[in-house]
């Protein structure tokens, strides 16, 4: 697989010793990572490994107990308003406001992120076309299937052209055609310079779209390295080594 890392080495995201406890147990501990513009990083781990907690902190929905998050060189924890313009987040299970139509959803997300007027209308039209949501545009989100909700959530995450795209299990409930379209979309975003973090349970998803993979186990980073499409077996060996035996591989810097 050819590298999809952009020529620009600009660091979009830098996590420094991020830690967070949840429900009385350590969810994430001393997590340090960097992500460059145009890079797609897969975040792997078994259930409870701390993937969603990590993504929630990066998206600004959850405060870390300690550690730092830098977004394009600025302290994100000091300036949470950066999330408005620079981060697009698709949470797990893509929650929606059931009473709003697809178009209204996009409008609401745009307004919450400070968009308005013609710019919002243009962005909404473009993303509806890009994600082929036209037939659903006036349908209430409450009646959408889970796969359709995922696409709506993705549209909301991409609406404001974020510098960092945070996707939590984006392929959930998508059919194979939609999964292929999602992969193409992720590649397209990376080519345009967007940094992407993709949390998934599917190793094939990682080898298909990611440049790098980070493996979390019991809240700590056990592996961080490049990934190649033709190296599925190696990734599988690394992942199962960590997941089944709690094996530790020293995390390498990106």
């Amino acid at each position, binding site marked *: 697989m050819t590298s999809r890392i952009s020529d620009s080495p600009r660091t979009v995201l830098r996590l420094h010793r991020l830690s967070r406890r949840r429900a009385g147990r350590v969810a994430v501990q001393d997590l340090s990572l960097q992500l460059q513009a145009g890079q797609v990083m897969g975040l792997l781990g078994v259930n409870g490994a701390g993937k969603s907690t990590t993504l929630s902190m990066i998206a600004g929905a*959850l405060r870390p107990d300690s550690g730092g998050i830098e977004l394009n060189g600025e302290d994100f924890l000091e300036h949470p308003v950066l999330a408005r313009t620079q981060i697009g987040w698709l949470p797990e299970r893509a929650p929606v406001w059931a009473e709003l139509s697809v178009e209204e959803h996009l409008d609401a997300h745009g307004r919450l992120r400070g968009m308005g007027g013609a710019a919002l209308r243009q962005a909404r039209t473009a993303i509806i076309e890009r994600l082929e949501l036209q037939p659903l545009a006036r349908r209430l989100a409450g009646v959408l299937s889970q796969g359709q909700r995922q696409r709506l959530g993705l549209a909301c995450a991409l609406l404001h052209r974020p510098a960092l795209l945070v996707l939590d299990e984006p392929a959930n409930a998508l059919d194979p055609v939609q999964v292929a379209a999602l992969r193409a979309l992720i590649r397209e975003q990376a080519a345009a310079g967007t940094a992407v973090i993709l949390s998934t349970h599917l190793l094939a998803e990682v080898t298909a779209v990611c440049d790098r993979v980070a493996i979390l186990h019991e809240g700590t980073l056990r592996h961080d390295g490049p990934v190649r499409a033709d190296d599925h077996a190696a990734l599988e060996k690394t992942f199962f080594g960590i997941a089944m035996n709690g094996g530790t591989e020293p995390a390498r810097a990106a």
Partner: protein
Amino acid sequence: MSHAFVNTLAVTRLEWRRLLVRPLAWVLAALTLAWLAWNFTLLLGGFLAGQIQRAALPDGPGFIDLVGVPLLAQLAQLAFLVVPLLCMSALAGERRNGTLPLLFAAGVPAWRIVLGKYLGVLGWLLLWLALTLAMPLALMHATHFDWGKLAAATLGLALMLAALAAIGVACSSFASHPALAAAAALVVALALWGVNLGAQMAGVNGGAINWLAMSTHLQPMLRGLVSSTDIVWFVLLIALALALAARRLDADKERG
């Protein structure tokens, strides 16, 4: 426009849209306005029937005393049920649907989420009050109007609705389920209304317990007496309830 205003307005629009689409808001509006309209006709009938006797009294009660204020008093009674139902999903519903993190992730601070939700509900309630007021106002050219008394009663009702909405939003921020939020808001509102009942029955008309009661501050306004102390009481209650709601939401973001 500042970011703070834009954020708050976006949350308000979102809440308005949800209220407009939700059948509950329409059903509540339709049922309560129908009930109030029926009572308005009864009050008006009584007023017309007693007009000849009252003509002999130089300072007898007028249209506002016999129709306008009693109608608003009925609205106040209905508000104890309507406002908790209207507010119950404001934040508890967001939490239950998993959409609260979407607001946090959009960089909207907790206090702006609370304020935006509150303004959304308050807008609906003020529209409800305006539609109720339209009934007596329809007769403004047909009878003598005591505008001062009507304005004072309207101000009292608006403040009461605003206070009940703040309590409703605060309860919604603490509850895990909208129904629990509605029940809690009803209990808190009734407790605030009647906290001094015992003292009054014992013949005590002053003191802290009477000051705490909402009825102490609303009833003078319904009689046409506006005092800054009463207005401050309502404003303090609203600020306290909204501050508690914002604090609870902040804790949500901390706890996850």
